[in-house]
């Protein structure tokens, strides 16, 4: 059997397959996820904000986290294990004037970059005097999400899923 030279339609199909692959990698597959994990301990309802499968080095993230004020009251935060002691990132967490929205910002300083796909960014501690089921069923949602990496300057990454 002799190999035939590629025909035009072979090249077109191959090009389409490659283009589809690039498209899926770039747009359909998330560049990473920021998600929430919840648990109750020591009279606190603890919400951990976790990074999962980040495809870009971390420089900073910012988001608003909306929570159910009927069930929870924000108390304080601790930095997660994604950061080492040497990182000492800039962190601001505060509620808006109207309760129920936490405005959260975490940023490394120029020259720092963390190339690690997974870990807990921050733990948020809430108090509640409600029944455990009410707390468990309360909902959280993200808005104003930003994920930044750094390449000579801040570069905001599109495609990080916050859920």
């Amino acid at each position, binding site marked *: 059997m002799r190999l035939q030279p590629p025909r035009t339609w072979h090249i077109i199909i191959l090009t389409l397959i490659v283009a589809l692959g690039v498209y899926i990698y770039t747009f359909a597959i998330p560049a990473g996820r920021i998600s929430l994990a919840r648990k109750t301990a020591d009279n606190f309802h603890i919400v951990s904000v976790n990074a999962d499968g980040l495809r870009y080095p971390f*420089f*900073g*993230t*910012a*988001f*608003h986290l909306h929570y159910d004020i009927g069930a929870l009251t924000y108390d304080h935060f601790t930095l997660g294990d994604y950061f080492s002691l040497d990182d000492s*990132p*800039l962190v*601001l967490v*505060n*509620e*808006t*004037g109207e309760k129920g929205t936490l*405005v*959260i*910002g*975490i*940023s*490394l*300083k*120029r*020259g720092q970059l963390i190339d690690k796909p997974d870990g807990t960014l921050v733990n948020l501690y809430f108090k509640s005097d409600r029944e455990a089921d009410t707390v468990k069923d309360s909902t959280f949602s993200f808005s*104003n999400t*930003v994920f*930044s990496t*750094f390449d000579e*300057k*801040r570069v905001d990454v599109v495609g990080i899923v916050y859920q």
Partner: protein
Amino acid sequence: MRKDRSGSFVEIANISNTNFTDSNNLIPNYTYRYQVITVKGTLESTPVNGQGVDTRGIKGDNTRSDRVDGRDLDNLARHYTLALADPNFDALIDTTYDGIIDGSDLIDIGANWATTY
């Protein structure tokens, strides 16, 4: 007119000569969108679009000290979560020009931390 934080063009000057310098709370290295409309009597031209960037200064230097440092961080923290409608909203701190002082502005401080102009 200049596009404001809500995306609308707002008149910033009404002048009779052909030169104008915008120096109204500009964020360094942010690309501002402008429209120029000429007026004669009751007649108005169609708007001409343009853009401009102030390359002086450093983004994140919200205290205008020519250095991004803890004072800028302190200033951001004092105004954190304030939105455009708030009377204490400080336009120089909202370096992302999105109408709210939040974590995204913090990233601008981190990205230029300890740099000087």
